[in-house]
């Protein structure tokens, strides 16, 4: 019996030592598992992203493949996600532009879940009729935020320095950009690829606008909106600074704002393709 007492006591003490050891290494282990959780969410999110999102937002998330080698928009409508203004810092610019008050995680989760009405971004959450469960939405958001890395977030990318005056813009000459004559046909393509038509409708068909004002007659009415601004200057401003002036009549009544319901980040999105601005203005104003 004494032997049993001794063995039992030793076993009990060993158990206690093991528990003590386990408790000591606990902080480190918890850290590892938190990272593992994060990592696996990103992995699952990656799968979902490539199956569902990459066709619009690009395989590398820059939405670059939305343009062919000549810079013409092809059938692809996504915004870039692998992008400083969406994923870097605590309150990335895209949140501020849309006056979103929460965190960037919430911003992305919300956008993925509920979509952006009027654009090709459908609501993805099954709560709003989409295909994804909550956990999947979270995983996709984790993947998107994982684009943030030291290199991308090192410094704010220099975006195109849009001049205030549209006339200065047309004659602008920088290393990368010299405005060519506007091409209305390409402007029409830009109009759809940036999804302007989803709110403003078809310019050839009065009343086809869904949300914003119809733009078929903007050549005339644009000149009357803001004193001292020509139609082309007005349209140029409205694209770059949508909140500066709120148009009187929208599809379903007076336009709301400021802030305007207009897409807020075109200045940034068109930075890589300033010629598109020229073409778009040529299309809308016939300049």
């Amino acid at each position: 019996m004494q032997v049993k007492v001794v063995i039992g006591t030793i076993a009990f003490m060993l158990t206690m030592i093991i528990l003590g050891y386990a408790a000591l290494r606990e902080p480190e282990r918890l850290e590892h598992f938190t990272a593992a959780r994060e990592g696996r969410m990103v992995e699952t999110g990656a799968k979902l992203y490539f199956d569902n999102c990459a066709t619009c937002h690009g395989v590398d998330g820059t939405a670059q493949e939305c343009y062919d080698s000549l810079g013409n928009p092809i059938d692809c409508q996504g915004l870039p996600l692998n992008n400083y203004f969406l994923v870097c810092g605590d309150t990335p610019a895209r949140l501020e532009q849309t006056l979103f008050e929460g965190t960037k995680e919430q911003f992305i989760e919300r956008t993925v879940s509920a979509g952006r009405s009027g654009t090709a971004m459908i609501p993805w959450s099954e709560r709003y009729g989409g295909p994804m469960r909550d956990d999947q939405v979270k995983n996709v958001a984790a993947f998107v935020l994982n684009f943030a890395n030291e290199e991308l977030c090192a410094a704010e990318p220099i975006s195109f320095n849009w001049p205030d005056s549209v006339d200065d813009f047309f004659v602008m000459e920088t290393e990368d950009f010299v405005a060519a004559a506007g091409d209305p046909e390409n402007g029409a393509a830009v109009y759809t690829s940036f999804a302007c038509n989803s709110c403003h409708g078809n310019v050839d068909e009065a009343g086809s606008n869904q949300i914003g004002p119809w733009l078929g007659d903007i050549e005339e009415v644009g000149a009357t909106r803001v004193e001292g601004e020509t139609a082309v200057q007005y349209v140029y401003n409205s694209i770059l600074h949508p909140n500066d002036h709120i148009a009187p009549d929208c599809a379903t009544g007076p336009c709301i704002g400021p802030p305007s319901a207009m897409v807020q980040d075109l200045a940034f999105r068109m930075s890589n393709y300033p010629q598109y601005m020229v073409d778009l203005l040529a299309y809308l104003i016939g300049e």
Partner: protein
Amino acid sequence: MATFFEQVSEMGVKQAVITKADEVVERLTAGMNISDIRSALRGDEPRRPNPRLRPHADSFWFHIRPSFYHTEVTHIYPTFRLGWLSTFMFVWETITGIILMVFYTPSPLVAYDNMWNILGNVPLGQLMRNMHRLGAEVMVLVVALHMLRTFITGSYKKPRQFTWATGVILLTFTALLSFSGYLLPWDQLAYWALTVFLSGAEAAPAPPELNANVLLILQGAPSLGAGGLLRWYLFHVLLLPLLTAIFFFVHYYKVVLYGISLPPGREEIGEDTAKRVPKDERTYFTPDILTSELLWTALITLFLTAGSLWFWDAPLEHHADPIVTPLHVVAPWYLAWSQGWLKLADKTIVIGFIPLLIVMFVVMPYVEVGKSRRYADRRVGLTVACLFFTAMLVSNWMGSPEFRVQSSPELEVAQEVMPQEGANVLLGVPYEYLQTGIYLPGEEISDNPYLTRALEEFEAAMQNHSCVLNGNPDMPREGIWDDCRELEGGRFGNDFGDNAMPDPFAALRITQEQANMVRLTLMFEVLDPNNPGEYLVQSGDSIYAFRHEGSFYEEECRFLNKDC
């Protein structure tokens, strides 16, 4: 009796405190004072009248234990302590389970997140989870072994038939407890194991309306979801433990009533002397049995704690997904036999047979009424038991996917080295060693033992599922593969099976996907020897997995029960 203050004035503070403590201890133990306990621990003879018997009359916990055993049943043989260990496991599961309950909500929206919270946020949470899950498996094993031993020693015979019958029910509950807990993490493993199990209910040999309604009750909705999870949670934490506890007390009451049966050779045939214990053959509960039980408690606690920390790890797969069926859905080992049967026989027959089997076990002692418990007189019974045991082991093996593989060979290779679920040999390579590039199976990568080992495994898997027809200059290591056997339907076989790729090309491609994440793609190409220019297998980019820097699969690979 004098009050404490009177005692103080009478004998001084020190003596009064000692007297008081003695009194308190005697009350707590319902009969033994401090010196009685010390003498019991020293192994001294008890004083007369024996104070060690009083707790068996007066205390709750001891009154359900007999005050002495026949010395013959206190050695390892014949009980192997398996009944006590079963009891211990039940208590163990209750304690660890209650701790886990604190951090768990039975809802598909959060259950899976809860598991990660337990793993990554609750101090000692992973240990607790491993202990509970390892304990569940050990408990099934211990209870089954206990059943085996009571069969072998013939302890199910008269008058202990009913003890045996309640035992069979306890085993059923134990398996159900284990299995109902299986669903709670709400991961792929859980979801599909239960879905397959429940699909059995549909095939039961009963009117289809009845089956449909049973299924509906069991899964709470037309498909397994929030309602089903809640139900199985309640089975697991409420109904089954309650029923198990009730049957345990009935079972144990009968054990005390009839006494533990002596080893078969120790009594006359047809006699039951367990309760007639001569004075000199008694081993008293206090201190001997108690010490021995505490010893076993300490040992198995040590075993379970060390096992949970270093050797065995509870699995956690991806979030349950009703749309994505894993390649091989495997039942837990203690139910794998039924999966084996399902591969052989019609579903309805198998599902009907399982309850029949339980009933057969329950009534067995009432039908098999041979008087003798001695081994020599029970050759038929023991042989049948051995055959049954072997049949179960074989069925279990048949339940594993090794038996009758159905899917295509390239998916089988992928399943071996990079399955969709769980840590595996490729994901287990530490992140820093996953350099981008294209690698052939069996390739040796200098300064990279991890990737080299993974590629070795890749080669071994290829060897199982490939064969040589004409030779393939792109795969220089094919010398070790078998020659192809041509089969009907344009398929090919090798020495391992009827599902091989002739002259395949295979490679692992690692590409950088994000700054801290790579993609591993397994690429397979097999030309169709019968249709030149056509591919028999061309997997393209379809077989891949992502590996994030932080996902820590290498940690999982340290455990014995992980396949990497």
